[in-house]
């Protein structure tokens, strides 16, 4: 018989390459993982043998991820750049996957026709589309595809024992191992073990006449007969898994993953968190959901029984937290480390041959006959059309998911950032991107500059990161309190990691940058704002590195590509022969096992219909729930939720549509009113939780009490609002609330002010800046400094003045010592001070000693996060002494002082005050810094409060502040002996610059107020301007 080329396979390859090959150019770069692999590839392209990568996490080893795919991209990058390499590998992966599924289906069914169907279905498999186009898991796809290829060889080795097949199977397995470590390990369990079982089963079948005669005894005997082949293969694969990526295991042993597990959607309860259910269950399964009974029916036949067990297991494990079974089976640790979507991926891949068989039977086999016979020809066509249509719909839906619901920020043009980092030795410091999404990896790949962040969370090294469930600081706002807390630590003590530049692609982070003492440097052409921090030393010339033995480097550099070469050399002959049909090959034994497919079980058909009906009902119910939950004006609760959702996403048109139409606020008026409210809540807050309490509900009206929790870059804000709701024409509406009618006094007014400009480098030169371009550091004077203990927490408080004639940016660092002068801790002033001081301006400050949360292993992660949780440092000893280092640098931005305290009175609710903005800049977030004094007018404590709403020009803003009770405050030490300014003792400055200081001025500016533990209080104002004009 002359073998013909399988036209379906060729068709699948052509369509697959055309479809996926062209789509990847629009999807791959906005996937979660692809750019990370690109970064790793860049590492190999740059230094093939040295596994240490300095650019992320202050250095990590790339031996923490199998290297093959990265190395291949790296090599290809020499031809046409990194992205060329990535796309080439992606195209290869597509081809490998389609052919892999073809061979796997061929092996399973023994029919070239069905295998052809398998190849075509592989192209349109929604799980593949998702893995490639949404997740971008290139190594995983490559490894899985090669694993599929190797299955035929493994089967034949077990079956025939020919050494040739042993070689082909182990070489391919080696390639799998070097591309992805998890795939072969779990692949052994879920794919190869059932495969071996099936091979043995086939061998047993050959010894008897029918499956009926095949008893366990026969099977057991056959197993024993094949034992050595299995053992040889098993032993070799174990050896390969260990040996081929030995440096990986070595590294895992040396740097065990001790970090806090990052929540992953695949572990959610899919019924509760429907978005996770969609992404990790509905999309990968897709149309397969309707055919599930058939899969189980077929897989639980005698030949496939082992696959059946594996398939069932995978299906259950893939359900994540929906059922408690995965947690029970995997145990707490494994459950929290593994991403369970992988199991679904494997289950769906495993189902492909059976689905191909189903499709074959449906299109041209016995199922078609049966359906036509029972339900008629039209029904068959309709069902066929529905299945094909459903499949196509899932593919299109998955493919466009990233387009309609972008998971990544818009594509950023990296060139201006790369140029910025390359210019003027900016890469002598570390940088931090904010709001870049996974594109940060692409930025890192293009520059030699280093960042404290990184995008491969298993390799996180800094304690600030590993102790919290945050994958990156870059997107910390999505990680709530933990994320923001971690970010704040980096921003407060940036010199710890020589962090000087921040590229902000998200306005959200601006306030915290400002209040931590950062300043805007410039806006790049691509709209990215560069922030810088003064007084940060550059990265030292020599930075630590964890070296590994040379043998590891050589193994890591040579083995992966060698496995590919070996596999290529050994397999090429066979491939060649198969492809060109140059030589007549003995058809492999499994080809004889093709089933006749002449009688589709009618019962199964009926059950399948029944099942499909249930699935449809579930689906329908899900859609209905979605509708009820999301149709904004269906209930009082919905309209409030929708209104807040619209406000959260700044969709004011939508928000306005929920307002009572009878209240006569037209959209223009509403937009005006909304646009003039600025402040942390309206501009920088992300709603974290919303709780609506509906009460007094009548058929046409209701009241809602809305508790919201907002995550802002500074603090968590709680807000409770009351709304009145009305129902008009079966739709619920919100009654608009009142707006402030205040009008400013002047239409046009003038304001004069001093502005400052620093040239930086006056000469255009590539040399280090000449000393005459370096400005003198402004002189500061520390007026008081104390170590106090309040509510069990140690703080340094004090007051500092800029005694120079130029504005100063102030950095204060405090170090605590015990009686034996042993250093206990050090930290910088965060936002309990004004960082920018005009000449002769004073500010009080407070330094809290913040520990790294849950840093000791015995602390367990609290189950829910207390938003205001502050992690005080644990002191091994009682701090009794301190050292204060302050440094001034010339500042020329953020010097706005236009806010006045216009009125204040004390009531039972605390201080009710009025801020008035007398200047010409709109203050987005005003901050009050409140200092407490004893009756001798000596500083006792410093507190702060952010006013949630901004102060517009020539307008007032009310604030309320409840004074603290300082009943447990204890001043441990108060002296200026160990206080230094720009490295000089404070006393010498006081003597020289301010010899005749008038100390009564401090007292004249404090408000007498008898509170618990204090006698005087003072309010200072620090203003953050969101859009400086």
């Amino acid at each position, binding site marked *: 018989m002359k073998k013909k080329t399988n036209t379906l396979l060729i068709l699948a390859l052509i369509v697959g390459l055309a479809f996926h090959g062209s789509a990847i150019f629009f999807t791959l770069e906005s996937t979660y993982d692809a750019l990370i692999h690109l970064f790793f590839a860049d590492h190999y392209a740059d230094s093939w043998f040295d596994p240490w990568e300095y650019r992320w996490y202050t250095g990590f080893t790339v031996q923490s991820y199998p290297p093959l795919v990265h190395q291949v991209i790296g090599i290809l990058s020499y031809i046409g750049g990194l992205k060329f390499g990535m796309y080439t590998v992606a195209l290869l992966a597509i081809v490998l996957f389609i052919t892999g599924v073809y061979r796997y289906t061929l092996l399973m069914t023994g029919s070239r026709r069905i295998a052809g169907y398998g190849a075509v279905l592989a192209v349109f498999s929604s799980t593949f589309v998702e893995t490639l186009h949404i997740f971008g898991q290139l190594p995983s796809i490559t490894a899985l595809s090669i694993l599929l290829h190797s299955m035929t060889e493994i089967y034949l080795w077990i079956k025939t024992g020919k050494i040739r097949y042993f070689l082909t199977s182990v070489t391919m397995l080696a390639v799998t191992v070097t591309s992805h470590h998890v795939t072969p390990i779990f692949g052994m369990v879920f794919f190869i073990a059932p495969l071996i079982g099936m091979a043995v089963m086939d061998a047993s079948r050959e010894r008897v006449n029918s499956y009926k005669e095949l008893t366990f005894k026969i099977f057991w005997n056959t197993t024993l007969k094949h034992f050595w082949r299995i053992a040889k293969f098993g032993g070799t694969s174990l050896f390969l898994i260990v040996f081929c990526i030995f440096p990986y295991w070595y590294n895992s042993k040396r740097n065990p993953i001790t970090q806090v597990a990052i929540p992953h959607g695949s572990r959610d309860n899919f019924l509760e968190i429907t978005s996770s259910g969609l992404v990790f269950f509905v999309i990968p399964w897709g149309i397969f959901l309707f055919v599930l009974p058939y899969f189980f029916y077929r897989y639980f036949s005698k030949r496939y029984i082992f696959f059946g067990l594996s398939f069932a297991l995978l299906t259950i494990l893939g359900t994540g937290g929906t059922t408690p079974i995965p947690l029970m089976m995997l145990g707490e640790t494994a459950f929290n480390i593994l991403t369970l979507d992988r199991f679904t991926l494997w289950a769906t891949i495993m189902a492909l041959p059976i689905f191909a068989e189903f499709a074959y039977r449906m299109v041209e086999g016995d199922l078609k006959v049966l359906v036509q016979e029972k339900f008629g020809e039209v029904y068959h066509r309709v069902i066929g059309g529905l299945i094909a249509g459903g499949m196509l719909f899932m593919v299109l839906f998955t493919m466009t998911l990233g387009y309609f619901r972008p998971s990544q920020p818009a594509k950023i043009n990296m060139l201006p950032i790369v140029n910025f980092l390359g210019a003027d030795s900016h890469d002598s410091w570390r940088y931090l991107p904010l709001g870049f999404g996974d594109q940060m990896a692409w930025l890192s790949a293009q520059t030699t500059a280093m960042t404290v962040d990184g995008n491969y969370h298993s390799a996180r090294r800094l304690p600030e990161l590993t102790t919290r469930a945050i994958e990156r600081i870059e997107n910390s706002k999505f990680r709530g309190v933990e994320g923001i807390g971690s970010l704040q630590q980096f921003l407060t003590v940036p010199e710890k990691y020589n962090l000087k530049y921040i590229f902000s692609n998200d306005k959200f982070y601006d306030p915290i940058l400002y209040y931590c003492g950062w300043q805007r440097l410039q806006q790049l052409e691509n709209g990215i704002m560069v922030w810088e921090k003064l007084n940060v030393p550059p990265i030292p010339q020599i930075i630590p590195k964890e070296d590994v033995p040379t043998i590891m480097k050589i193994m890591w550099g040579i083995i992966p590509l060698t496995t590919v070469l070996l596999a290529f050399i050994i397999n090429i002959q066979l491939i060649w022969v198969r492809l060109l049909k140059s030589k007549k090959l003995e058809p492999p034994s499994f080809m004889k096992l093709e089933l006749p497919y002449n009688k589709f079980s009618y019962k199964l058909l009926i059950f399948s219909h029944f099942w499909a009906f249930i699935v449809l009902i579930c689906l329908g119910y899900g859609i209905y729930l979605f509708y009820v939950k999301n149709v904004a004006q269906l209930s009082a609760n919905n309209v409030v939720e929708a209104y807040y959702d619209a406000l959260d996403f700044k969709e004011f048109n939508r928000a306005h549509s929920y307002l009572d139409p009878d209240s006569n606020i037209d959209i223009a008026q509403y937009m005006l009113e909304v646009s003039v409210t600025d402040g942390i809540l309206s501009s920088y807050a992300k709603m974290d939780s919303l709780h609506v309490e509906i009460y007094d509900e009548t058929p046409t009206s209701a009241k809602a009490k809305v508790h919201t929790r907002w995550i802002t870059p500074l603090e968590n804000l709680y807000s409770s609002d009351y709304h009145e709701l009305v129902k008009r024409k079966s739709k619920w509406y919100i009654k608009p609330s009142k707006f402030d009618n205040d009008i400013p*006094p002047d239409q046009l007014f003038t304001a004069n002010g001093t502005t400052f400009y620093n040239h930086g480098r006056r000469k255009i030169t590539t040399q280090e800046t000449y000393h005459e371009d370096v400005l003198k550091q402004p002189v500061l004077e520390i007026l008081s400094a104390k170590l106090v203990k309040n509510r069990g927490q140690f703080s340094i408080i004090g007051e500092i003045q800029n005694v120079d004639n130029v504005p100063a940016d102030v950095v204060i660092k405090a170090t605590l010592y015990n009686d034996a002068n042993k250093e206990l801790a050090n930290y910088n002033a965060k936002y309990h001070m004004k960082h920018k001081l005009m000449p002769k301006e004073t500010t009080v400050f407070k330094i809290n000693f913040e520990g790294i949360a849950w840093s000791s292993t015995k602390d367990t992660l609290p189950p829910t996060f207390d938003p205001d949780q502050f992690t005080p440092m644990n002191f091994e000893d009682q701090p009794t002494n301190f050292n204060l280092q302050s440094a001034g640098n010339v500042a020329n931005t953020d010097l706005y002082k236009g806010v006045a305290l216009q009125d204040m009175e004390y009531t039972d609710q605390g201080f009710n005050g009025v801020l008035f903005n007398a200047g010409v800049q709109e203050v987005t977030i005003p901050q009050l810094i409140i200092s407490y004094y004893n009756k001798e007018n000596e500083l006792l404590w410093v507190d702060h409060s952010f006013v949630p709403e901004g102060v517009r020009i020539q307008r007032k803003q009310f604030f309320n502040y409840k004074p603290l009770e300082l009943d447990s405050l204890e001043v441990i030490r108060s002296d200026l002996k160990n206080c230094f300014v720009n490295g000089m003792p404070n006393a010498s400055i006081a003597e020289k610059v301010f010899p005749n200081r008038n100390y009564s*001025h401090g007292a004249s500016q404090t408000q007498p107020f008898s509170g618990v533990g204090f006698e005087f209080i003072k309010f200072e104002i620090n203003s953050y301007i969101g859009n400086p004009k």
Partner: protein
Amino acid sequence: MHKTIYIILCFIMLGCSSKKEEPKKSAQINAIALTKKDRYTAGDAITMAFKTEAPIENFKLHIKNAYGTLLVAPEMVHGEMVFSFPTNFSRKSGLCRWKLINEGQTLLKGEIEIHPNEQKGTNMATYFGPRSITAGDIDYSMLVIAPTDVFDNPVARGTEVTVKSQFLASINEYKVATTELMAWYNVRSTHKSGRILVTAACNATPSKELTTIVFPSNSTSFKITAFQDHDYADGNQILKLRSDIIKDEFGNTVSDGTLVTFIIKNDKDAYLYTVGTTINGIVEGRTLHPSQAAHWNIQAFITGASESNSIDVTFRTAIEDYKVYFSKGNRNIDIGPLESFMKQLVPDGILVQMDVFSEHGDFIETKKTTTKKGVCNFYLSPEYLENGTYKLVIRAAGITKEFKKEMNGI
């Protein structure tokens, strides 16, 4: 047995005897230095010639100066050994020691003195700092001059350097001498603020221009005045507080940007404040008129340095009275119209507060609103406030009105 002992003894004796290390015998070689010159100027070619009987291969000249040590191989010229010094030795001023060495033995040694080459010209490195000082008698900037010859050797000790400094109309000239490497001069601060330019010259080579800024010293007391368009407490006018020109003790106007805090003490003893920064010595602070009659006592401070006189500003009441109307079962409260000092409607935005207390005087809540077109309105809906008797305290423009009303109906 004896035999064995003999053999062992022999071995022991052989083992114990050692060959004595004898000094390598070498004939005493005589070398004569032919070059007698031991003073050079930097940049001169320096060669040393020696004569010796022995073959010259093994001779080396070991030279050592401040830069380091070198072994120089000889050249044979007319039967003499000639050693040429490389330029990094011949150009470096100071002592240069040499030794003639043959197979580890020093045959001759001596030293050469190299003088800086001041004829070819002088280079100068100058440093001046700090870049800014404070007017008065204490502060100074230091000018440091390091004159060198063309080969970067410091000029001879005691070389004269001329320092010139310019301030306003005067240019002064001083002469200082280098000691060791450099000369230095302290430019004292002046009483007047401004810019001091300095330069230096050595061996007729001028330096670049260097500068320090003399900033004014700490301010002295100053006067403030209040400016307002009218003195009514309407909550809608800007009060401007302006100082005279603030000067330091030497009569210099304080630096632009100096922060001045105006502390406002009102008649309720609350400390309000506004700040301003100076331009040409004058500072202006602004704040808003209060919305009720008030008496403000204002004083300005430049913290630690100086303070102003204290002034009093009195605001007359703009709103004499207002009316309150109750309707809808006393649940709807209309306040106004609020009229200002000329019986005009008040500008929009006057804050009106209403505290709600229970019949027995327990505080329930505060409601706030602002006027529009002179009026405002509160509605206490029954969902929030059950029917019953309540005490309502309405405050606007400093006028408090108290009502006890029974709420009923919708």
